[in-house]
Each structure stands twice: as structure tokens, then as C-alpha cells.
């Protein structure tokens, strides 16, 4: 098993453009060799003229010598827009976390339904009922482990126009993060409900990760000198097991320790709970309320925050504790959640991408 530490610095480290395609089937009007010149890694565009989206509706556009960049399928969609074409491309550079795809903005044609898959695991991303001519798709669900030998396939099953060719004018895989594998010197991270002494204590358990890296290419030093290293960059720690990435912790950068003449750099990370102390919480209006409803009020105020109970027993426990005419005058969400934990003897901890509520005893 291999440990990967991925740090999203928020800057593009490498993009790649479709460099080698396989497709099905062969285009009749625009042959692949006429589109792309592998010797120059450049698009040539279509030769001659090309019917617009629907060759049966008497409309057409003429393109000049510069051609029309992109890929176009040879077969066309049926009367309902259904089609089955795919386009595959290999990865290079860092594992991408975003896929940018642009269909045909000029003709306003696009894929309605399509999937993104890879050749290393069975994970797929399904996009349905799309209405955009360009999208940026998060690739996290593919759980790509290693770019070497990995290909991504975009399979289009429905086009927005009947009797029309599929067109993709841009397909770019973007990595805004770097994955550190060989550079890892040490890493320690927590998944704690109680403290190490397992003492009974309610409240929010803050998780941490301390990482040491060998900055062999000087990238981190460069980023530091450009003042790009900031707090709260996402850090994902995964174990790679048979080509699938198992995430064992997600944190946010808190403090970098980078010495100018030392290739070993240290990074302290924290979980997301600190952010809750910076969000104001409106005082609760007085009404009968269960602990479950109190927790829901607290987490809802955080917005875009996922939480769950550790088990159904804890869920039932929280729903059964009721305070008549409950109210609370509290300044922040963190303070409010701590108050709930204090009296209901709960413990809340962050794991990967959500808060988990458990009993502290």
C-alpha cells in the first residue's frame, strides 16, 4: 500500500490537451489525420466544408483554410438524439482533478448524457440532462491513483440535436494540485473521537495532520517565494490499494515550515472545524426542541456542510432528548455545537468530508 498526499495549491501545474485519440467509428468527412497533426501536436481543422449540425435541414456553414478545430464523429444521432461515441486519452503529468470539455458553442450543440471513466478502476462519473456547451467536471469520484498508464474515456450517449454529429472542440485535463508520493518523509494524522487518553469529555474533537516532505524539485520553495502558499488549501491523504485511492483523511493547510536551505519542509494541517468559529450563529428563538433539531440548526447555519450520526442508536438518542422552550444566545456555530455536546454528552469529529456525531461516553 502506498501513501499519497495531495495538496491543492489552487494553481495549474500542468494541463494536457488531447494528444492521442482513439474513436469510434472513423469520421467520413473529417478524417482524424486531417484534424490533428501528431508531428506538430497541432489541430489542422477540417478540410473543405462541413455540414452544420443537421445535414438534413439544408443549413450549412463553410469554414476556411483554418478549419474547424476539434473532433467530430462520423455517425450521427438518431431522431431522439441517441448516439454512442467515445473518445479516449492518456494522462500525463499530475493526476488531474478537473476535466474541461467544450462541445460546439457556435452551433450550440452539446452532449446531453455522457460518462467519464478510466481504465484502472470501475469508477465512473455520469452526467445527465446537461444543457451547457462547456463544463468543468470534478474528477475526484474517479479516484485516480497514478497518471502513468491511465486513460480517461468520455462516452457520449445522447446529443442535444437529432441527426447530428457529435463535436468536441476542447478536452483538457487540469491538475491544480500536486500529489506527493516519493517525497513523503513522514506523515501523522488523526481520526479521533476521544483524546489519546480516552477520557470522557464532550465537545468537538479537532483532527490534525503533520506532514514532512522532501522538496526534491524545489516546487514548494518556489511556491513559497511567490507567496502562493496560504492557509486552508485542501490536503487529501489517500492510501493506494490496487489502483484505487482510499481517502483516509482530508484536511486544510494551517502552517508551513520551510527553511531556505533545507529541502525537508513541514506542513501542519487541521480539519474544517475551526471555520465554524468564524461563522456567526443567530440566537435561537424559543421553542420546544430536540437535540437532533439543535444539531440541525447548527449545521444548517454552516451551509454546504455534511454531517451524520455515527450510528442509528446515536440518532435515536439525540431525537429523544427534548428541551421545552429551548433557546440559545450564542455567538458562533462552534460555540453553539459545543453547548449541545456539553449537555447531551456528545462528541463531534471531522472525518474526510463530514462531521460525525457520536456519544462521548
Amino acid at each position, binding site marked *: 500500500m502506498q501513501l499519497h498526499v495531495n495538496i491543492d495549491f489552487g494553481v495549474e501545474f500542468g494541463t494536457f490537451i488531447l494528444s492521442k485519440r482513439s474513436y469510434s467509428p472513423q469520421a467520413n468527412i473529417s478524417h482524424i489525420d486531417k484534424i490533428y497533426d501528431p508531428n506538430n501536436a497541432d489541430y489542422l481543422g477540417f478540410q473543405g466544408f462541413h455540414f452544420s449540425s443537421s445535414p438534413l435541414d439544408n443549413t450549412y456553414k463553410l469554414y476556411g483554410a483554418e478549419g474547424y478545430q476539434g473532433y467530430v464523429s462520423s455517425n450521427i444521432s438518431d431522431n431522439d438524439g441517441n448516439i454512442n461515441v467515445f473518445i479516449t486519452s492518456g494522462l500525463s503529468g499530475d493526476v488531474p482533478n478537473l476535466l474541461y470539455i467544450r462541445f460546439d458553442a457556435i452551433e450550440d450543440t452539446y452532449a446531453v448524457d455522457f460518462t467519464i471513466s478510466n481504465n484502472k478502476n470501475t469508477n465512473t462519473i455520469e452526467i445527465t440532462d446537461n444543457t451547457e456547451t462547456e463544463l468543468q467536471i470534478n474528477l475526484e469520484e474517479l479516484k485516480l491513483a497514478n497518471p502513468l498508464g491511465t486513460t480517461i474515456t468520455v462516452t457520449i450517449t445522447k446529443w442535444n440535436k437529432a441527426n447530428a454529429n457529435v463535436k468536441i472542440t476542447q478536452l483538457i485535463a487540469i491538475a491544480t494540485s500536486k500529489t506527493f508520493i516519493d517525497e513523503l518523509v513522514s506523515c501523522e494524522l488523526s481520526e479521533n473521537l476521544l483524546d489519546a487518553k*480516552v477520557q470522557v469529555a464532550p465537545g468537538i474533537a479537532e483532527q490534525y495532520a503533520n506532514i514532512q516532505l522532501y522538496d526534491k524539485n524545489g516546487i514548494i520553495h518556489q511556491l513559497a517565494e511567490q507567496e502562493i502558499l496560504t492557509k486552508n488549501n485542501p490536503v487529501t491523504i489517500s492510501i493506494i490499494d490496487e489502483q484505487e485511492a482510499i481517502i483516509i483523511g482530508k484536511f486544510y493547510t494551517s502552517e508551513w515550515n520551510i527553511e531556505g536551505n533545507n529541502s525537508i519542509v513541514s506542513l501542519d494541517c487541521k480539519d474544517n472545524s475551526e471555520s465554524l468559529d468564524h461563522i456567526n450563529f443567530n440566537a435561537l428563538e424559543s421553542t420546544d426542541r430536540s437535540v437532533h433539531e439543535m444539531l440541525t440548526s447548527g449545521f444548517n447555519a454552516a451551509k454546504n456542510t455534511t454531517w451524520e450520526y455515527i450510528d442509528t442508536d446515536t440518532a435515536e438518542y439525540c431525537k429523544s432528548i427534548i428541551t421545552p422552550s429551548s433557546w440559545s444566545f450564542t455567538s458562533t456555530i462552534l460555540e453553539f455545537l459545543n453547548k449541545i455536546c456539553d449537555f447531551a454528552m456528545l462528541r463531534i469529529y471531522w472525518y474526510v468530508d463530514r462531521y460525525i456525531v457520536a456519544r462521548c461516553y
Partner: protein
Amino acid sequence: MSIQLTAYNYKNLNYKVTPQNIIDTITVAPITNVYEQESSVLATESVTSISINGTDYSLSNLEHGGSQVSSFDNEAPTYRRCVNNEGTYVLAHRILAKARTDVLMYSGSKIFTTTTPISGQISATLSMTWKSSAKDKDASISFDDSPSLSQLNSDTYSLATWIRQNSVAKNSGNWIFNQTDFSTNPWAKPNAASIDAQKIDVITKWYSDALIQPPAQPAIICWSENSNYALSGNKFTYINDLEDGEGLSMTDDSISISCTCKKLDNYRVRVSYTIPVRFSYFALARSWRLVGGYEQNGSWAFVDRLVGLEIQLNGLALDTTKNEMSYSLDENQELTTNLKNNFNYKLENNELFTLSTYKDTTDNLWSTYITKELLTKYEKGKIVATLDVPVQWAIENNIHINSEVQVQKQDTTYITRKGTIVTFLVKAITKKFTGTSFEYSLSLMEE
């Protein structure tokens, strides 16, 4: 089903044979959370400055600046008895007088925030503190000039001082001179949830006194209601053939006080008020004898200004008394107040935990439930242990928080307690990677 941990799976086992986390006494302190029966002061705020025409003034500095005039000018050649600049009664046939009064009104609001919910009827009380002063006139200023606060002679200052010292609040008009004591004046401390247009009887009419008989004490122009009033023992007789001046009357709406409360939410109330913040009265008079050409003139002014405003919010206070209660378990495992007090645990108290908080039914109070629950589980303490496992094993066995494990020691016997195999729950995981190893350190606590 518990995961079996053998010596092949772990290393660095440490466990305490003696139980840890013993709790034999628990203290809780739920709050009462009941409203009082009678209204009381919930909060008090002081207003120290106000904004007039876009300029901020501290309340002690309202002598100058701003004006909302509700005035009269009495330029007609009417006859008035007035005090001259020597402070003595003037016998005259013709007196010209000018007088003017100003009142500066201010509308403001204050939002009160309470830290406990507000319930029921709310009201506000305004308490005002006033200060008076008098101004001197420059004698060279001619009569025809409109009087200003800075244009009064020094003699009238002493007269004004005498007036203030000797006037009594015998009526709502005269009170204006006695600024330091508002205890008997209901206007100064309105106290109601909503006060609509409470009128101020500030100045009503000029009065003259007998032309012939001098008063025993210096006569002055006094502001009073439509009847005769004595001012510190003086008595004036109303002379019918002399016209009365007019001042601010009781029906003058421009000086109505209002004070309303609006509940914004459970914790905030806006108190909106309209009050006078400054009164100025100044008068200029000239009298002369038809015979002898004796001429005298005098003028004075008083300024009463608000120097302090306190607003009290009244309503039903919420009783948030903490009711501390401690328990141990008796020999029947029931709660008792005979405390063992060896290992105490105190629940943190806050407003969410009230006397009436319950679990499942209102008969099962939370304070009773949780104390018994914790004492039952922890009176005997828990066996705790720590050990390290390879990450591969942890991933394969899906080790997370609350995973159940039983630990077999090196001698192949299990960790037991009184002959029973202990089932541990994972309560903390430290995932450690170095160049040579990758393992999880588990902290376990007996279930």
C-alpha cells in the same frame, strides 16, 4: 461482531489492569427557564449623543446649534409688566416686549439586545436629566434686534439665578425653573409601553401684574397657566385691559413626547422616542415713562437642556438560575444524594439544559437520566489499552471509530475483566507513516 486482534496483528500493546475513567459522583446544574410574574428592568441604555441636522452633539453640549423653533414674537405695542435690568419693578405706561421660545425636538431609537428571550408585554421608561443656565446680554444691542442667547446683560443673570433658586413646581408651568428635581413631574419620566402625545405645558401666557402696586419681591414675567400664580410668595393680579402674550400652549403638538416599543425578535426590541432636548426662552423688554423719559430695558434668557437620557426596557425577566444537584449511586444502583465524592464529574452547564429537559417522556428528566447513565457505566471505570496495527490490517478490517475488537495477549489469553473477555471500542486512531513503516495506533476503551 468483534474483530479478534492477536499478537500477530499488533505490537506495542499497553493496557491498564486497573480501570480508568472512574466516576462515582456527578454534578449537573440545569437552569430554571421560567419567566417571572412581574415586570422588571430587563436592560438599561444611556444615550450620550444625538444627531441634529447631520451633526453629532453630546447631550451636554446642546446649548448651541440646531433649532426647531416654535416661537412667537410679540412685537406689537402691547403692555407688559417686565423686569428691568436692575431687577426691580417698573412702573411704566408703555412697555414693549419681545419674547421668544425655542424647543428642540429629537427623534431617536435604540435597539436593546437581551441575552435571554423576551416574552410578554414590554415597555420603556425614559429618564431625563436636565441642566439650566442663563445668559447675559450685551447692553449695547438694540431692542430691535432679535434676541440671541449671547446677548443678555449680567444683571439678568443674577435675576435668573434667583428665579431658579426660588421657584417651586407649584404648577406645570413653573416647574420649568426647577430643573433639578423631576421626581414629582410625571412628564419627565414617562412610563408606559406607548405614550402618545403627552403634552407639555411649558409656557402658556404672559401675565402682567398690577401697575400700581409693586410686589414685595422683584416682579418677573412668569410662565404659567391661565390663572394667577404666585412665584415664591408673590401674587399677581391679572389686569384685564392688558393683553396677554402667548407662548407654547398645551395644545402645541410640536412638543409631544412619544415612546414606543417594537419587538424585532426574541432578543431585540427597538425603542423609538421623540423628546424635547432643549428649551430656550429669552425675552427683551423696554419700558419708558411718558414723563421724564425714563427708559429702561432688560432681557434675559434661560436655556434648559437635556444632559442625560437613560432608557430602561421593562418586561418579564427569565429566571436562569442554575440548580446544582449532585448524585452518586447507592447499593441498589439508584441515585442518592449521599455522595461518595471520590471521582467527581461535572457536566458543563448552559442554557440548553433546563430543569424540564427530558428524555423520551416528560417523566424522565434528563438530569436524572444522564446522571444515572454515566454513574452506571463509569462507577467501576473502564479498561483502556493502546496498540499499533499495520495499515494493511486496519484497511482490510475496516477499522474506524467504535470498531469492536477483542485483544489476545502474547500468551494467547484475552484481556479479561473478572473472567469476562473485554470488548473494546476504538476511540482514537493515529495514522503514522515513516519511511520504514505505516501503521495505525489505536486507543481502545472497554465497551
